[in-house]
């Protein structure tokens, strides 16, 4: 498949307005503004576009749910928080194709009847934000954003809002809280953001990549879009491959592509002289897969059938030098650190799991600790306000399930028995 979203990312001027306009830029917007908003929503629905932020929810449906008959203003919140470990696709889109993001936001606003799109970008992407701001100023200048867009009488602003370092701010209601100037802690749903979001007004929260799919759908039509990829998993998809591969990077493909192809053909496979050990297919929050489970299309539905999730399509590859007890501990540190603290199972359970895993990794654990992991993690998963709880339980549960013998080795030997050429030289016992 020819790349659609990332075709020009390597062009030195690919991010500029002039370049964008020479390559069908804002043509989708023109076409959308000539349509009725309801027809745009119908078109996105027919395309089967599913959200790229993690859950894979149909975007057209989400837009349709946005309250119509209301005196309140409506908003698009573009989720550019991208903090799921292993994910770096929105980064590339915003840095190298910013006008596509704006075009997606504008069409979204037209479709749901919003006059402002807020792009919530994570604070660490400051150099990306500067690119966005510079290009946004040009788009305002040329009349693609702002008052009376392209002479159609449609007014729409785009505002870039900088976050300040919080994984949980990526969750849609936490993002809204953070946007309103509070701690990034989720709200209880319902009401969903489509009914009560930013400032308690109807809001559609959409991932950057999701919005970038929209201009192509409007411009090239539903048939073109559904010709890409397997049933119910249409369109171009960005995959982030990282870890122990030769060519880590963002790769665009249809969801027909198998995980094995992505890892071995696109990303060059594992390092020379090494063997694949395990793969996390959708960001650190999802259960891992073993090497014999990789011959499945990397689509939302097929990965779910294999017992994991496509999530944010962040494929993290580990070779045989990776100790799975250490992986569980590394990720547990992340979840313990990033828990927003609103519910007890996640806040306290994450801390407990981290302590148990630390003692196991140091060789100070007992066999009972291994079962304790399942008990504590089982009391987090499914018992929390937001899906973060399930995510936090996943690394510990799947490593114990698939690699129990490694945990037992740590207990028996009193140390890690997996040789590695990249761990710290002096990783002291209980460091952190």
């Amino acid at each position, binding site marked *: 498949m020819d790349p659609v979203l990332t075709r020009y990312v390597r062009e030195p001027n690919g991010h500029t307005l002039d370049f964008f306009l020479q390559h069908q830029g804002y043509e989708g917007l023109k076409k959308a503004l000539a349509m009725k908003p309801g027809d745009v929503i119908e078109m996105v629905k027919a395309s089967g576009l599913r959200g790229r932020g993690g859950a894979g929810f149909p975007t057209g449906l989400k837009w349709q749910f946005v309250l119509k008959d209301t005196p309140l203003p409506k908003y698009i919140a573009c989720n550019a928080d991208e903090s799921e*470990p292993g994910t770096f696709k929105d980064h590339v889109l915003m840095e190298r194709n910013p006008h596509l993001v704006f075009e997606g936001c504008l069409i979204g606003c037209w479709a749901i009847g919003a006059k402002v799109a807020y792009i919530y970008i994570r604070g660490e992407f400051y*150099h990306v934000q*500067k690119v966005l701001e510079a290009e946004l100023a040009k788009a305002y200048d040329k009349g693609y954003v702002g008052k009376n867009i392209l002479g159609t009488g449609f007014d729409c602003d785009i505002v870039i809002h900088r*976050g300040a370092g919080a994984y949980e701010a990526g969750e849609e209601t936490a993002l809204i809280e953070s946007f309103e*100037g*509070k701690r*990034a802690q989720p709200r209880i749903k319902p009401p969903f953001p489509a009914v009560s979001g930013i400032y308690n007004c109807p809001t559609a929260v959409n991932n950057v990549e999701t919005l970038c799919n929209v201009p192509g759908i409007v411009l090239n039509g539903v048939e073109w879009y559904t010709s890409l990829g397997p049933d119910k998993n249409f369109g171009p998809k960005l995959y982030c491959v990282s870890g122990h591969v030769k060519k*880590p990077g963002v790769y665009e493909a249809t969801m027909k592509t198998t995980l094995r192809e992505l890892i071995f053909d696109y990303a060059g496979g594992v390092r020379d002289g090494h063997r694949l050990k395990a793969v996390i297919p959708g960001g650190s929050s999802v259960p891992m897969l073993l090497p014999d489970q990789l011959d499945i299309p990397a689509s939302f539905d097929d990965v779910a059938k294999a017992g994991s999730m496509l999530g944010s399509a962040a494929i*993290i590859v580990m070779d045989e030098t990776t100790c799975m007890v250490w992986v569980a501990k590394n990720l547990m540190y992340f979840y313990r650190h990033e828990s927003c603290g609103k519910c007890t199972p996640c806040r306290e359970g994450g801390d407990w799991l981290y302590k148990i895993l630390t003692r196991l990794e140091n060789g100070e654990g007992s066999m009972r600790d291994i079962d304790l992991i399942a008990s504590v993690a089982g009391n987090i998963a499914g018992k929390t306000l937001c899906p973060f709880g399930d995510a936090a339980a996943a690394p510990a549960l799947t490593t114990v399930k698939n690699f129990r013998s490694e945990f037992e080795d740590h207990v028996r030997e009193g140390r890690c028995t997996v040789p590695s050429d990249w761990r710290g030289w002096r990783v002291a016992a209980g460091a952190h």
Partner: protein
Amino acid sequence: MSFHPLMEYDPGRFHHSERKIADEGAPFVFTPERRAKLDEILTEYPPERKRSAVLAALYLVQEQEGYLTANGMRHVAGILDLTPAEVEDVATYYVMFFKEKVGKYVLQVCRTLSCALNGAERVTESLSEKLGIKVGETDPSGMFTLLEFECLGACDRAPVVMVNNEHWHEHATPESCSKLIDDIKAKGEAALSGCHLKVEK
């Protein structure tokens, strides 16, 4: 709080938050330029929703003072019609705000999985050795602070070191970081490039 029946507890440390609440700092008002910048940012939100600008205002305090002081937060509270406690509540949540004095250059090494798989632990260790400080500390000259950070969203360029919340140093190795420290010492800000891959392109 509840207790797990099989769990062993370490006494005296139930709660894992070790965040320090800010010190008073010097008396604080925004410089006129920063105040003007904040006023401009405020126009992007509905007038009765000034609170949305709190993160932006705190960034400006941090830019001016180097970290968030209680006086700085009170000043922000005054401008945004919030209580000081509300501002502090927000400030202590987000990791990009420093709640105590830090060095002129804050080095934040990404420690999450993809970076760790590519040698981030060695990068942290070598920086720690070179600067003679542990993670979380500032060197005696007040020049460098060494911290760890969670996934920066650039795992294809792992390991990544972020400097002062803005500048990225990618594909970091013990050697490249040693050079980075020397460069910063020699050239100051000029040694930082925003995102060094962009410069290479």
